[in-house]
């Protein structure tokens, strides 16, 4: 078991986990988003996003019992680390901190995405299929960690977790672009693009399932049995709040603030694993 097996959504323990993995530089100012006018770092918030004061959890008495217990368990009973080794979980944490940075969240409101990913892999839950050019998800994640470490060594002669944020982003960008400069033996065993989509979808599955993320983006959350009544014009329900936008720019030490297409062949060769139905 790893130290983060006892981690909960409460900040103190999360901070301790970070400390134990030697990430003192985590709160460095160059990891914070900045005010685009002054270029000054914006301090971490309990709730980033444009819906200050909005809380889905505050509405839980209006949810049905089954939904309430599932969502509360997600917040209050963060699953322990059981799949990744201690070494792997440190690397995975450093990767996820760049794939979906949370430096703008205060420690008490960070979402422990690695624990949810570990839980899926430990329980061998899959999305109902595996691409022919991919190994099992468990194996894919292990291979991916090895490949990322190999790229870091190749590009910067250092372990990924020792790199500066911008360097870490360069490593990850090479996978996003499907042009990894190292780890070729591993990429013989799995598709670069499918690996990128796999690890990203796992991060997104964990983060945007969390009520803190719903509050951030202004999503109403569970709505049974109450339902919605203001369907048109983007109007908030009486218990939702209006958007209150503020300007922010990605930290100067990052690459991911810019959009560029995922590398490799596009269109129908580039579908997300684990996608839901639409219509």
């Amino acid at each position, binding site marked *: 078991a790893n130290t983060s097996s006892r981690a909960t959504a409460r900040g103190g323990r999360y901070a301790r986990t970070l400390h134990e993995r030697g990430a003192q530089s985590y709160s460095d100012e160059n990891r914070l988003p900045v005010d685009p006018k002054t270029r000054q770092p914006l301090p971490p918030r309990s709730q980033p*996003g444009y819906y200050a004061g909005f809380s889905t959890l505050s509405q839980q008495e209006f949810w*049905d019992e*089954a939904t309430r217990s*599932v*969502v509360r368990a*997600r917040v209050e009973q*963060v*699953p322990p680390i059981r799949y990744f080794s201690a070494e792997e979980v440190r690397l995975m944490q450093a990767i996820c901190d760049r794939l979906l*940075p949370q430096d703008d969240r205060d420690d008490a409101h960070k979402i422990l995405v690695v624990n*949810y990913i570990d839980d*899926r892999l430990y*329980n061998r839950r*899959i*999305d*109902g*299929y*595996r*691409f*022919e050019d991919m190994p099992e998800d468990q194996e894919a994640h292990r291979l991916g960690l090895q490949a990322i470490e190999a790229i870091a060594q190749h590009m910067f002669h250092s372990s990924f977790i020792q790199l500066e944020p911008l360097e870490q*982003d360069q490593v*990850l960008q090479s996978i996003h672009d499907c042009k990894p400069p190292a780890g070729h033996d591993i990429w013989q065993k799995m598709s670069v693009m499918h690996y990128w*989509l796999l690890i*990203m*979808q796992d991060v*997104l599955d*964990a*983060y*945007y*399932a969390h009520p803190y*993320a719903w509050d951030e*983006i202004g*999503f109403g959350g*569970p*709505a*049974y*049995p109450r339902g*919605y009544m203001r*369907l*048109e014009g*983007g*109007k*908030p329900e009486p218990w939702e709040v209006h958007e209150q936008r503020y300007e922010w720019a*990605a930290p100067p030490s990052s*690459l*991911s*603030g*810019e*959009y560029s297409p995922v590398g490799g062949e596009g*269109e*129908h*060769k*580039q*579908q*997300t694993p*684990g*996608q*839901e*139905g*639409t*219509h």
Partner: protein
Amino acid sequence: MNKSAINQAPTGKFNGSKNGDHMLGPIQKIDVPMRRFGSDEEVDFCIVGVGSAGGVLLQRLARAGFRVVGIEAGPFWNTERDWVSDEAGSSKLYWNELRVTGGEDPITLGANNSGRGVGGGSVHWAGFTPRFHPSDFRVYSQDGVGVDWPIAYEDLKPYYELLEKEIPVAGPAYYPWGDPHGYTYGPHPMGGVGDVLIKGCTKLGIRVSAGGPVAITSGSHADRPHCIYRGFCIQGCKVGAKQSTLVSHVPDAIRHGAEIRDNCMVARINLGKKGLVTGVTYFDPGGNERELRARVVLVCGYAIETPRLLLNSACPGFENGLANSSGTVGKYLMVQIGNVVFGRFPDPIRMYKAPPAHALTEEFYETDPRHDFARGFAIQTVGPLPIAFAKQMMVAKGAWGWGMRRVMMDYNHWAALGVLGEILPWEDNRVELADDTDRHGLRVAKITFRLHDNDKKIARFGTDKTTEVLYAAGAEEVVHEARYAHLVGGARMGRDPRISVTDSFGRTHDIRNLFICDGSLLPTQGSANPGLTIQALAARTADYLISEGENALTGRPGTVSRPPVRQNLSPRGTSGRGVPRIK
């Protein structure tokens, strides 16, 4: 999420042994105990898979007095207890066991298109219920592509009308495309995405339908409450407003003596000495192998599991798969182009409200000689929830890291429209058996798929046209992701036994008491969502089986070519209701 907590929750054990134990929504109950046939009893019909087609067949055959058992791989949901108003918490609704997918343009499975549990795919469909157009039944004769159906639109029309009342479908009083018709229940109010579609189409002079047709109640009917516009249609409708056969047909089936054996996985169909099937072998919830003897077996497992079961049932005389003398089982698999096009608007949309499915246009459905492709597409509203939208942005914008956080903070400013484009049936798009096995040791399905030239042209044109609509509606940025929707084909019906698996009633050409009835029968698919057509075909097959009676049960050759349309087999409280509209 803590998925382990969900896994520990009780799911799907049918507990309706006492009146009113089993809840389907806040007010609907199954109000009688379920019949249980003895373990060595032979039944009339064994239905493998209680989904869109299986649910309708089970209900009609039970109502007609037959002894019917449905075997379902997934749970018999108690929706109040088992379903949640939560995206991640709904993953158990899908066929999540392993399949292998490949080919040049591989299709995704699981949550995208594969249900599991009583109600099947109808539990997680968005609920669009357009009819197929008359042209869909004669695609080859008319457009020189694909293949003709062994039946015409007119053969299915009475069943469309029946099912539209049984579901019931809400829609406009006049629907102009295909065979123009009206709906007996009124349309839904618009959500933000519907407003975008209507605004954009109107500006471009494209006709558009508002508020349906969808399988969602716009008013309360008996024990089916009306929609509350919460937007979780794809996560299973806890309200009971969106139809699944679980809420529309299964309660009536149970009342008329049908049995459903849930959490039971059929391993193979058994062939007897006379060239007729004798029933199925299945794994019960404890993993024990059991046999159910039946006079007729109906395979209703949908486009992947139906071919898989037939292939896994290979036996002496059918070395390449049961009922597969044509070599067609598993071939001509289809999905539809399901590209989603996203527009960002200056003002908030909040697309999570209202059912994802609530407005569409079929203006581009038919072959247009001005285009460089045959057939066409529809444009429909979709309303992805946050997790789905984030995954879409990962591809549509290449977003990750801070860029992902940023676009997600703008979630409420985006509207999403779906292209639904016709992909033609190609022999090389297919289901086979993989070397991998499932927890029962059964070989899993391997799917191979590639897009052909005509398919790619439809995808491109449809995406471009939808982009125009979004800009016309006032979008300031438009991006798209390529994807597929729905599954059909894989055991197609046809007149010629050399190139099809069944006749138009789903009776296999090779084995007279083995039927297939689900989406895998479809020879082509149009650009209409297939759910209504699958249910209508099931009602037609039920009428056929009831008309044949002893002939069907004893495996004698059929004598009926046009069974009468039985109007008295609808579930309780659904016939004779609704406002008469233009036919």
